């Protein structure tokens, strides 16, 4: 069964369109990243999927049930953006409450906290936790009861690189067991290779829905060859390569992916005029900017 099915989902807030004909699906075991700048509609879409706010129109199916229905709630976990648990409770007490609310034995709290690396801090108050530790409490509660769909709103914001990698390792394990994951982020660099598919939202519209490799292909952004010329030879190099841009001793050459080898051959032909060269493929940020700005705004 498809974990999440969205089709033509629209939502307006007092005349302003927040979501415009959004549609995509998530299959079991898939990790999908939802990307977009602030206000692109990521959190709104997530809240609609969770049934916290209603959509104006469109079809939403969560594990075959209506969003927010008892059937959907029992199998969907959520991690809100910037969630702050009550500072007076300890991590263990907070997780025990969430276990009870899901109808699970509270004894599982220790194992859950250990799985997110909080075993040592379990009996300290959440008020003393760092932002990364609070985020781990949030992840621990999202793991309760083996949910089949996890909706995580900017789960890695505020995490250091090591914590982020550990976080994705936990998600990989869940996905391997067949859980679907929808996580949002405002930067492609944060999700990179750890997701199966990337959906880019801009002003409430889906601008792209593909794998990272597919996005690269679609964007067809030029590869940049940066040539360091011998002192005084920069002008000549630029002229012979018909390069557009020059900056001091370096010459920048933009070329499409399929003419890259030809251009490299051209550069090699210059021989002693060239000191060094670097080939820079389009960065993740370039690709993201390409899609999120495609609507001309």
């Amino acid at each position: 069964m498809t974990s999440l099915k969205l089709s033509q989902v629209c939502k307006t807030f007092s005349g302003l369109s927040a979501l415009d004909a959004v549609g995509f699906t998530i299959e079991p075991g898939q990790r999908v990243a939802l990307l977009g700048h602030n206000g692109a509609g990521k959190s709104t879409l997530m809240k609609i999927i969770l049934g916290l706010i209603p959509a104006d129109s469109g079809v939403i199916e969560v594990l075959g049930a209506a969003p927010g229905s008892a059937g959907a709630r029992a199998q969907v976990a959520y991690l809100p953006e910037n969630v702050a648990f009550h500072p007076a409770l300890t991590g263990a007490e907070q997780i025990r409450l969430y276990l009870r609310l899901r109808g699970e034995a509270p004894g599982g709290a220790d194992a859950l906290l250990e799985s997110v690396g909080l075993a040592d801090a379990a009996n300290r108050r959440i008020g003393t936790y760092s932002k990364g530790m609070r985020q781990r409490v949030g992840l621990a509660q999202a793991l309760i009861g083996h949910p089949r769909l996890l909706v995580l709103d900017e789960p890695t914001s505020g995490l250091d690189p090591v914590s982020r990698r550990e976080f994705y390792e936990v998600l990989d394990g869940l996905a391997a067991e067949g859980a679907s994951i929808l996580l949002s982020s405002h930067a492609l660099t944060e999700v990179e290779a750890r997701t199966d598919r990337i959906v880019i939202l801009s002003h409430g519209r889906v601008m792209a829905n593909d794998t990272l490799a597919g996005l690269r292909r679609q964007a067809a952004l030029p590869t940049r060859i940066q040539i360091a010329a011998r002192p005084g030879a920069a002008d000549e190099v630029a002229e012979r390569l018909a390069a557009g841009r020059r900056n001091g001793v370096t010459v920048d050459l933009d070329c499409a992916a399929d003419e890259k080898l030809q251009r490299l051959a051209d550069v090699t032909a210059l021989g002693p005029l060239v000191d060094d060269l670097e080939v820079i493929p389009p960065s993740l940020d370039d690709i993201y900017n390409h899609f999120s700005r495609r609507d001309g705004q």
Partner: protein
Amino acid sequence: MKRIFALAGSEIRIALRNRWVAIIVVTMVLFSLVLSAAGSAPTGALGADKLSVTVASLTGLAVYLVPLVALLMSFDAVAGEVERGTLALILTYPVSRVALLLGKFIAHLSILALALALGYGVAAGVAFATDADAAAGLPALFRLFWTSLLLGASFLGLGYGISAYSGRPGPAAGLAIGMWLVLIVLYDLGLLAAIVADDGGFFTKTVFSWLLLANPADAFRLFNLSASSATEVAAGVGGAANSIPPLQALASVALWPILALFLALVGFRKVTP
């Protein structure tokens, strides 16, 4: 049901950690002690036992303190969860909004019950220590206890309503204090002013008693004083106790918690996290 108690347990733990329980209990006990000491002067002229006299003064205290304490505990209930972002999370759990509100309500009412039991218990202890006939006032004390709980329940519900409608803790706190001032302090002053201006006319004869019954705090005072053998201690609006049947006052005291919780639930249902 299990989930409601899990929520209530967590709320009680939070209140214990935040020293709320300690603050409320100490306040109730201190005020009760002060009133007991003040009431231990000779009361022979009234012909009532010490405990009945103490209950009459405690009634006057409870009218101010119980709503205040209830509002202080409840104003943050919904708005605080909205601000922390935990409301959105908990609403994705298999828990209904009714259960959420009931969990908080059970916790807050239990804390209030503990504080009242200790406060009134201390007062009763003092009365028994100084008057052998104090047992005659026990029914009045018991009546004061459960009506105080009903009064507290009403204001807990009103507090949740304020919390849900205002959405943020800051405005909710302001509104709670405003509601306390209006319902507890200004309401009676307004009624007295109206009576003076009306000078025994239509207002005093008909509207006045209904307005007294409409306010849970006034109904609470009327019921306790009209049922007490020490009404002479009462002053001001309490003097109207004689003109209103206790049963009507009791109905108001008993119906207000239901109405207030219903209003809170209606407001809570409209909250989008």
